[in-house]
């Protein structure tokens, strides 16, 4: 894995990103805009599971209508995040906050979208209150901890 990060650091793209004065700022801005989009879509699915909003629609409907937005937003986060890492791969490799963030991200991605996909594939609009509320709280905690770990990358 380390050699992969070293290879990435040696690419022209990575060198150009490091030398550019504005590249990192621009990529960071895209990361933030994508966060607002994906964060909003994910948050509102969890809010619906908790029964705190969009209650005029079934959970299945909300899961379906927010899915494309969540996927586009997360894809934009991954792409912009990749370029942020590419600007200093070896530095990120040794950053414990970055590693923690990646583990949490994989966990959140699998967990959240497994739940949202399952809800969107329901045959009927039935509600199962308690397990869904627990899932929503878990999802929110996971995404929130990713934000905290992400912010910590610049400080450790």
């Amino acid at each position, binding site marked *: 894995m380390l050699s992969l990060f070293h290879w990435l650091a040696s690419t022209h793209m990575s060198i150009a990103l490091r030398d550019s004065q504005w590249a990192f*700022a621009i990529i960071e801005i895209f990361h933030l805009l994508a966060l*607002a*989009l994906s*964060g909003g*879509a994910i*948050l*509102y699915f969890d809010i619906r599971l908790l029964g705190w909003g*969009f209650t005029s629609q079934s959970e299945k409907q909300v899961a379906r209508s927010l899915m494309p937005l969540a996927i586009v937003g997360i894809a934009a986060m991954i792409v912009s995040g990749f370029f942020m890492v590419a600007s200093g791969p070896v530095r990120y490799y040794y950053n414990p906050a970055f590693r923690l963030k990646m583990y949490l991200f994989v966990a959140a991605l699998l967990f959240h979208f497994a739940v949202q996909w399952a809800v969107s594939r329901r045959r009927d609009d039935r509600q199962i209150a308690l397990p869904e509320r627990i899932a929503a709280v878990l999802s929110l905690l996971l995404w929130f901890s990713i934000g905290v770990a992400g912010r910590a990358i610049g400080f450790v």
Partner: protein
Amino acid sequence: MPAVQHFCEWVSSTGFSIALRKSIWAFPIVESLHVLGIVLLVGSVALLDLRLLGYIMKHEPVSKIAHSVSRWTWAGFALMFVTGLLLSAAEAAENYFNLAFRIKLALLVLVGLNPLIFHLTIFRSVNSWDLSNVIPWRARAAAWSSLVLWAGIVVAGRMIAYIH
């Protein structure tokens, strides 16, 4: 505006501002809460805008979505406003001269006018177009300007840290 500049310099000289600026943890924590506010506020606003433009939840009345997102929008606004004031106070003297900061303030005024005009005019007649496929052009214009302005605010806000 010398008066404003003096005020900013005075804010910067207060013990509170110095403590915030010099602290290891307080500033990044306030900054993180500010970003959490972005998700709540801009995420909510974007959902309503995307509905007005017909990209999501097309079969759901606009008024119901507006009602569902409004309390989270306000919660996000409160969080952003309080943390934004703290961040501004921590570096008030520098911010006064920061072009990105000035642009951000101007955009914030515009983005505040947008929902004001929207709610006082076209949203009053929401009952007549709540479920229609073609939303009145003034509502669509409001949605586009809201999306563009909020994106501009995020851009200008992030740039504050990059220009001196």
